[in-house]
């Protein structure tokens, strides 16, 4: 293998690699388009060849060879193991409790890991943008939630404008008290750092800082007074194989990285 220190990589590549390494072999992942999918495919190409990939639209374990515009694009259905209905994917698999990781994006994420994919408050109205799709369902029933987001003041916020998907709700045991199943862990991967909620309050904290990023940069770009974990680390670097795969196999057209 080539010496790691020779690697140059983009922030998106680092995010994809970091997220990919959080996935474990044999897990069942419900995943959306974009960097989450790129990260999942990278994991499958490296340390986790037996990941099962599930798209809410009713597609299991595709092996796409062309890049699609969304999960409704048949490019993403090529060489699937199984096709099913919404109830088949989000009912019989997800709600049945078989999904280890729900891998989401969103417009805003708040300090308790709640995600907004519906819309945002503008001066005098609520600007509607998208909606839940399967996201609310995925966050309700996945054992672990991962999200990838841009680290901006208006995106990593104290309270989301709309709770489309519940993370730890108002922190502590409020998620469970609302009636939802427990969520073992939430991980947020941004362009600046990785965040978890591994404390009693279930409040967002910085787990690792990407190489070259300063604490101040993170503080500046976060919409609330963010905490740093006691055992704060630097995010591990991608290795050359990962970068090679991302650039040449997984996203050669550079649509997402």
């Amino acid at each position, binding site marked *: 293998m080539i010496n790691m220190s020779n690697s140059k990589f983009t922030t998106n590549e680092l995010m994809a690699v970091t997220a990919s390494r959080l996935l474990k072999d044999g897990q069942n992942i419900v995943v959306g388009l974009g960097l989450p999918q790129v990260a999942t495919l990278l994991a499958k190409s490296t340390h986790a060849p037996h990941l099962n990939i599930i798209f809410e639209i*009713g597609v299991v374990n595709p092996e796409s060879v062309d890049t699609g515009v*969304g999960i409704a694009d*048949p490019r993403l259905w090529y060489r699937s193991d199984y096709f099913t209905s919404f109830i088949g994917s989000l009912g019989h698999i997800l709600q049945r409790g078989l999904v280890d990781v729900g891998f989401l994006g969103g417009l805003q994420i708040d300090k308790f890991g709640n995600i907004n994919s519906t819309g945002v408050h503008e001066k005098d109205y609520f600007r509607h943008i998208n909606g839940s799709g399967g996201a609310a369902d995925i966050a309700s029933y996945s054992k672990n939630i991962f999200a990838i987001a841009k680290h901006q003041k208006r995106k990593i916020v104290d309270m989301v404008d709309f709770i*489309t998907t519940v993370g730890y709700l108002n922190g502590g045991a409020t998620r469970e008290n609302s009636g939802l199943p427990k969520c073992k862990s939430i991980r947020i991967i941004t362009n600046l750092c990785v965040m978890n909620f591994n404390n009693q309050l279930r409040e967002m904290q910085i787990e690792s800082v990407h190489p070259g990023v300063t604490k101040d940069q993170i503080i500046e770009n976060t919409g609330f007074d963010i905490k740093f974990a006691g055992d704060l680390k630097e995010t591990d670097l991608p290795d050359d194989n990962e970068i090679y795969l991302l650039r040449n196999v997984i996203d050669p057209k550079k649509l997402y990285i």
Partner: protein
Amino acid sequence: MNSKVMNLIDAVREIPDGAEIAFGGFAITRSPVAFACEMIRQNKKDLNIYQPIVCMATDMLVGAKSVKKLSYGGGSLDRFGRMERINEAFENKTIDAREFSGLSLTYRFLAGSLGVPYIPTKTLLGTDILKNLLDKKDESVMISESPYGDGEKYVFMKALNPDYAVIHAPYADEKGNVLIDGPVWDLELAKAAKKLYVTVDQIISNEYIKMHPEKVVIPNVYTHAVIEVPYGAYPTAVYKMYDYDSDMLTKYAKTNKKQEDFDLFIDEYVTGTSNHNEFLEKCGGISALNKLKADPVYGYKKVWGDKYE
């Protein structure tokens, strides 16, 4: 009784203003565009639409002021753009928009298609989606405790058997057995509807079905009408049949940003044409369609690199 085949105009005529309709389709795939265009031509009003994930047809119907109420779980035109006619109607409150998640709304159809009164689920708990639905006293949702004394909380998603459902499929026979390749996110709503209308690209023989019953996803007991409309989902995709038309979707995603642009689009492409073939002609005709032919293995238009293009 013999045959469930109808033509599009007559089928759409059966649907009254104010009808309660579930729509199939998902973003840019299997959207019942031809059916929606004919509804716009016939100037349907006050529709009450249910759809787990909205598709292009629904955005068109909302933009054309055919919709009074929309219950849905979000959706977009994927990377082409957003459902801007829906978003604007939502923001301006010109429609009564009720937002769900994909699974929770589908549970209403699952319950309806099973003949059970509701499905108890935990999804939506804690969300603002649920809060809004409760605030609006939407009949879909009710919060209740477990009957087993374990203190668990559930949302009851009430059974819905919509008066009509409209889906697009590649094939059906004239008896109404429907074949769909690929994922079938719209199966539950199709089975729940009192009258299921299926536009198909081609009506095929029952003999083919007898040879491939495993391809039937909706047996004829559910089907009210089979309507042959070749390219009936265009410009959205039908897996293994034709790809979405990127050019046309890009154009639509531009025109749907503003009502006046959208109106011009509808004037030209929909009310300015008298049927789906004319719509297809307007969109580029045979030469546009020829470019979309799906490869039988890949299921979409496979591009073979520069040398073949």
